[in-house]
């Protein structure tokens, strides 16, 4: 089974719009792994078939009747998660040290429900996605659960490919979204931030030994910077799969709840060419850093 992760480093470069178009073109399972700000469902309108509960890290809970305010838990907590009145705050990482050091057993670690994972059907095929509850942490673990769900869906539906809509950044959710993928497609934009973030996320892909391709979105916002990106990639033999012009049509399509494939013929043709290149590289394993 082939897995492609679409990432960007910088947010807002167009990952989700492009993944929605790939969903239209590919015979694949789609996984929305941007779990703390998921948007893909707005375009794909999934019908939820199955839900699973997600438990993130445990959390320490204090029984104030048993607490003698000795302060040992506070002294040993490395995360500044316990205040003077021995209340646990959102910095708790569920390590269990406070439970261990408490002399009166006033603290216990408890499992909590932190979100849900969905197995769904969309107009373009099966989709795995998730909901992280408000102010819950550990989204990397939830990303892994969405990818497992996608794998099961692919087996069940006889699909040979998973396309992952990744989160921005380079930290734990991104690592969880790309590890074990056959290739990443980096969507960048010709701005100083876009270039800077593309370089960092390329280093991450390299670090984990994953082939990377680049697509320049909104390339005509700053053609000089777009050339800079091309030069950067050419020097490193990174495949550029396409350049997409800035167009209000993407926003218009979004407002209508549609992918660009269903909304604008010219842009649809361009994205189709990009997808052909991506799928060829994915198939042959060329492309490369």
């Amino acid at each position, binding site marked *: 089974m082939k897995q492609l992760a679409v990432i960007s480093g910088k947010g807002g*470069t167009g990952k989700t719009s492009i993944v929605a178009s790939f969903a239209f073109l590919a015979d694949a399972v789609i996984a929305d792994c941007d779990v703390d700000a998921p948007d893909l469902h707005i375009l794909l309108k999934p019908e939820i078939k199955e839900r699973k509960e997600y438990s993130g890290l445990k959390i320490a809970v204090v029984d104030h009747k048993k607490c003698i305010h000795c302060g040992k838990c506070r002294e040993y907590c490395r995360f500044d998660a316990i205040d003077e009145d021995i209340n646990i705050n*959102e910095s708790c990482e569920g*390590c269990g040290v406070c439970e261990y050091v408490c002399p009166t057993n006033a603290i216990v670690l408890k499992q909590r429900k932190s979100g849900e994972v969905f197995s769904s059907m969309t107009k373009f095929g099966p989709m795995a996605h998730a909901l992280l509850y408000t102010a819950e942490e550990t989204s990397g673990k939830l990303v892994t659960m969405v990818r497992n769900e996608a794998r099961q869906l692919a087996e069940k539906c006889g699909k040979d490919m998973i396309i992952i809509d990744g989160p921005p950044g380079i930290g734990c959710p991104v690592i969880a979204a790309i590890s074990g993928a056959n290739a990443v497609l980096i969507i960048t934009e010709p701005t100083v931030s876009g270039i800077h973030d593309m370089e960092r996320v390329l280093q991450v892909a390299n670090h984990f030994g994953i082939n990377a391709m680049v697509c320049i979105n909104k390339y005509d916002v700053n053609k000089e910077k777009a050339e800079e990106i091309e030069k950067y990639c050419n020097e490193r033999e990174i495949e550029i799969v396409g350049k997409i012009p800035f167009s209000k049509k993407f926003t218009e399509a979004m407002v209508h709840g549609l992918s660009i494939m269903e909304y604008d013929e010219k842009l649809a043709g361009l994205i189709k060419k990009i997808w052909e290149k991506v799928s060829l590289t994915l198939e042959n394993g060329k492309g490369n850093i």
Partner: protein
Amino acid sequence: MKVAVASGKGGTGKTAIATNLAVSNNVALFDCDVEEPNDHLFFDMKLQKVEDVNLKIPIIDERKCTLCGKCSEFCQYNALATLPSHVLFFPELCHGCGGCKLICPEEAIHEGERSIGVIERGENEIVFYRGVLNVGEAMATPIIKALKKKLKAVEHAILDSPPGNACPMIETIKDADYCILVTEPTPFGLHDLKLAVDVVKKMNVPFGVIINKDGIGDKEVENYCKKEGIDIITKVPYSRKIASLYSQGKLFALEMKEWDEKFQELFAAIEEKI
């Protein structure tokens, strides 16, 4: 006064608002987007390393270890695995809680340190601090925590938050006096704004909304804010000129006088609110 600039969705313009707001009001800027820090690209300044951000890690003395398995059983992060011949340690999974050292009955564990990133400082038009997570590292939160300790050095500060609504964003905005949520008038912008509003409300941080790229999508963000009684503190229209200045790494408040004044008024208005 500490003002955090956040958003659920990435690419709505946090960095543009945070950098321009800081320069117009001559206040310190903290780049808390430690995974992809960009604020420095808009200033001509030399950055100097202030410190390494280290996490504590266990070091196991194999001569003392009896392979009892208590440490790996205690570890909530699966960073330790007890094998028949030795204990295997996965540094990227370790949160540095120190629990394994406490629980080891043989006192076979002591602690060392490993660096996961750095804190840097620069000064030019403004005082600037940023944190940078090393490539390949997973945990952004300890860097943001270390960065926020430097807030003591300044009176006022703008904190540029990472995107999303999970741990790194929460760590940035908690204890802020005010949070600006930057959004764009599109269905994606609205959806992620609602998630971000839930977070700031739960954290009890006073907040207002800036609609960036106003005019590109629809009116739903505005309708939502009105219905919920949320302050729209300003709107920045979509403009090719602003987009182009941003793409070159230029601050539009310095190039467009009217925006310099607007950002000063905005900061004064926030000061008055809290």
